[in-house]
């Protein structure tokens, strides 16, 4: 059961991240694929500002989200891939909460110090702070998803 849930989690993360990097590739492929790329950009515009100067570029076109968001999602996918090797696929134990708080504080500081004009964030600072929180999140979300799936499974199979 946990293996199936993990594979679903991995597949969704993989497709979500793949589409981000496929958008610029498809845009240069022409005709129908360019239209798909167009819709991928519109879809991700709901989740990100997509400012050109703040985005990584692939074969001359920006990826579908900014450098911070692409680092968050790439870090997330990397963490999901590594999860079974780090924690074991059946582990439902979560790391201490301060890991998540510290990662969030780093990213919030990177954003607000830039807005306040105290520190100008860079591609590297955005990528690192985004990558850290993206990497941390699955260690809370995967056990939660497995617990949720187990609850549903046990309810419908009558297991206690």
């Amino acid at each position, binding site marked *: 059961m946990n293996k199936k849930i993990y594979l679903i989690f991995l597949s969704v993360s993989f497709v979500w991240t793949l589409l981000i990097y496929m958008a610029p590739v498809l845009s240069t492929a022409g005709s129908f694929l*360019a239209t798909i790329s167009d819709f991928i950009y*519109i*879809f991700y515009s*709901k989740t*990100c500002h997509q400012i050109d100067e703040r985005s990584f570029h692939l074969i001359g076109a920006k990826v579908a989200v900014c450098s911070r968001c692409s680092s968050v999602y790439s870090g997330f996918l990397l963490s999901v891939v590594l999860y079974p090797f780090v924690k074991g696929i*059946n582990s439902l134990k*979560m790391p201490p909460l301060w890991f998540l708080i510290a990662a969030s504080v780093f990213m919030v500081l990177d954003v607000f110090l830039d807005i306040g004009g105290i520190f100008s964030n860079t591609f590297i600072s955005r990528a690192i702070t985004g990558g850290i929180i993206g990497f941390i999140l699955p260690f809370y979300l995967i056990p*939660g998803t497995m617990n949720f799936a187990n*609850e549903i499974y046990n309810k419908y199979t009558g297991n206690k």
Partner: protein
Amino acid sequence: MTENTGVNRLSSVIAGSTIMIALSILPIINFINLFFCSGIIIGGFFGVLSLNRQMRRAGTIMTYKDGVLTGIISGFLAAVTVSGINIISLVYSSVNPISEAMQVFGNYLKNMPPEMLNQLKQLENDFNTQGYSVTLILFTFLSNILIFPLFGAAGGLLATSIILRNKSSLPPES
């Protein structure tokens, strides 16, 4: 949705979706959603905190199912509301959003493949002739229906995981 225990799940869903809607449509603060939909995650998170507070008062224990469903339903409700507001503002606004976007991304458009430019011009023409674009409205609605419940569920799951982190109610299955 009010149970015998005095827990009103609907109020938690409405609290969560209200936060999502406010953080999605209010000017300036809606920028928060540009950081991987943080506004939607926060809505799901606080919806679950509200449910947990009610359940603690009622002496019942929250489950992961409660948390995830609160996040998903809050997200769904917010998606429908935000899409409705977006559509109404698109139809009644004299501004062509595609023309505006094309002006903002002027330099980027120079490097854009002709097929993509044609697609954008098609959408721009739809707005000029009809005042709205059915394709864009449908796509916006479908995107919202996918993104809001997904990130709402993530916020709900995160809150539930934090609330229940010391309570491993279910043994791991092999």
